[in-house]
C-alpha cells in the first residue's frame, strides 16, 4: 500500500543537484521517480528507487554528508485520459484530505496507466479511501518490478 521514498535536503546552489545524482548514479542506484521542491534558499529532493536500494541509497547519501530520510508515500494509479487526475483529486477533496505534494513516475508501467506519487495529510485514511473506491495503488513489489 505504501512505498518507500528517500527525501534529501539540498542547498539551493549551482551544482548541488548534479552532485547528488552523480553520487547515486556512481553508487549504481537507479531513479524510478524524482521530484524537486525548491524555495529561494533550499530544495527538497524526493526520490523513489527500487526497495533493494533504499537502505544503501540512504547510507550512501548520509555518508557523503547529506541530510536524508526515508518516508512512506502512496503510489496511486490514475487513468491516463483527460480528467483522470481530476477524478482522483475530487475523491481526496471530498474525504477532507489534502495533498501535501505529488509527483509522477519517470518510468511508465506496461498497463498504460499513469502513476502518481502522493503525500496526503492522512496517509492511512487515504489508503482506505482509495481501496473503497477501487483506486489502484502500486505495492513496493510492483514498483520494484518497473
Amino acid at each position, binding site marked *: 500500500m505504501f512505498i518507500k*521514498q528517500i*527525501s534529501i*535536503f*539540498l*542547498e539551493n546552489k549551482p551544482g*548541488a543537484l548534479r552532485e547528488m545524482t552523480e553520487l547515486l548514479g556512481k553508487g549504481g542506484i537507479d531513479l524510478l521517480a524524482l521530484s524537486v*521542491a525548491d*524555495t529561494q*534558499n*533550499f530544495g*527538497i529532493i*524526493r526520490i523513489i528507487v527500487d526497495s533493494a536500494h533504499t537502505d544503501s541509497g540512504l547510507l550512501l547519501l548520509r555518508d557523503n*554528508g*547529506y*541530510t*536524508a*530520510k526515508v*518516508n512512506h508515500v502512496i503510489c496511486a494509479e490514475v487513468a491516463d485520459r483527460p480528467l483522470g487526475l481530476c477524478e482522483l483529486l475530487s475523491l481526496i477533496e471530498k474525504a477532507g484530505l489534502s495533498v*501535501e*505534494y505529488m509527483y509522477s513516475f519517470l518510468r511508465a508501467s506496461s498497463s498504460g496507466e499513469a502513476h502518481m506519487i502522493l*503525500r496526503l495529510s492522512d496517509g492511512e485514511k487515504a489508503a482506505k479511501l482509495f481501496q473503497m473506491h477501487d483506486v489502484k495503488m502500486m505495492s513496493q513489489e510492483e514498483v520494484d518490478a518497473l
Partner: protein
Amino acid sequence: MEMGQREHRIYNPAMECISRDELHKLQGERLAATVKREYENVAVYRARMDEAGVKPEDIRGVEDLKYLPFMEKTDLRDYYPFDLLASPKSEIVRIHGSSGTTGKPIVSGYTANDVDVWSEMMARTLTAAGCTSEDIVQVSYGLGLFTGGFGGYQGANKIGAMVVPMSSGNTQRQIMMMRDLGATLLCCTPSYATYLGETIREMGLDPNVDLKLKAGCFGAEPWTEEMRVRIEELLGIDACDIYGLTEIAGPGVAFECLEKHGMHINEDHVIAEIINPATGEQLPYGTPGELVFTTITKTGMPMLRYRTHDICTLTDEKCECGRTLARMGRITGRTDDMLVIRGVNVFPSQIESVLVRADGVAPHYMLIVDRVNSSDTLEVQVEMTEDMFGDTVSHIENVRKYITDQIKSVVGIASKVKLVAPKSIPRSEGKAKRVIDNRKLH
C-alpha cells in the same frame, strides 16, 4: 570649527576639572567605603574576598585596587536577579537590564542615589556636547529595560533642557517631530543617526536649513571615525561618542567633549583600569588592554573590578576642554566573542542555546554580521540535521520560523535564519569560529 577654539561647557567643573591628586584621594575614600559596603552586604563577594585573603581594611586607596578579585558578566547571570544587591530591596527604585551571555537577561538594581549619580553622568555628557537648559533633546534610544533611553532623558532633565522621549523606531515620525519641535541635540546609536541622516536627505530636506540640530551623543555600539565624518556631514552636527554599560550605570560612564579626542571617564564615580586580559595584571596608561571598572558611589549594586572585555587605552593627559578626567580611546576590540548588533549585546552562546537539541548538542552554525544601509544585519546559518528535516517545504519553513522566533525572543533582535547543507560551514581546529563580522568597525 578648529580644535581648541570652541566654547566648552562643563556641567560640574569642581569634579570634572579636579586636580589628579585630589581626585585620587577622593577615589580612595569612596573605594574604601564601597568595599566595606560590599563585604558587609554581598555574601558572594565577601566569600570571594575571603578566598583571596583580602579584608575591607586592606583597601585604603586606589593603589590597593589590584588586590581585589574581579567581577564578571557571568556573576550577574549566576546571581540573577538580586543576590548582588548591597542595599535592601526596598531601597531599589529601578531595574535596568541587558541581554546576558545565555538565554536570561542580566539586571542591575538602582537606588535613588544610583539614578541620581547616573543622571549626573549624563548631564555632564550632554553639557559636553553643548547642551544647556535652552536646548531640546530628542532621545531616540529605546526607552525600557535598556539604559539608553532613560539615560538621555534623565541627563536632559537634570540640565533642565526640554526632552522629547521618542524612543526608537518610526523614522518618519522622528523626523517630523525633530523638525516641528526644533530639536537641537540627538541621542541615539550611531547607525541610527546615519540612517536618520540618510532618510532626511532622501526626503529632500537640508538639515542645515530645515533642522536645528547642533550635536548628538551617539553610543551603545562600536563605531569609527569614518562614521563620525559621515554623520556630521549628513546631519550638519558635532557627533560625540559616549560609553556606558548597564552593569556600571548606563550611558555616560564616559563621554566625549567637543574636542572629540577620547571619552572622559566620570572618575569621581568610577575607577577605570586597564589590565592584561590573560593575566589580570594592571597595565600602565597608554598600553592597550581590557577595560575594568569599579563603581565608587553606587549603592544598589556596586561593581568591583568589573571586567568589560572591551579593549582600549587610557590617557590622563589634560584635555584642551579643561577637564582633568582621564580619557579612554575608542573600543578597538573584545577579549570575548560578544557582538554588538543594532545596539544589542549578542553572544554566540545565546544563539547556541536556541539551537541545542534534545540530545544537548547544537548543530553547526555561523553568525554573519554585516552593515547594510547603515543598519546591522544578522544572518544565522544553521546546518540542517535529520531531526530538523522533513520532506515538505512547510515543515522546513516552520523549523526556520521557529528558530527565528526563538532567537528574537532570547536575544531580542531580528535575524535571518538560513538552513544550509550539513558540513557546509567550515570546521576549525581548536576553538570553533562562530562569527564572521563584515562591518569593519575596528
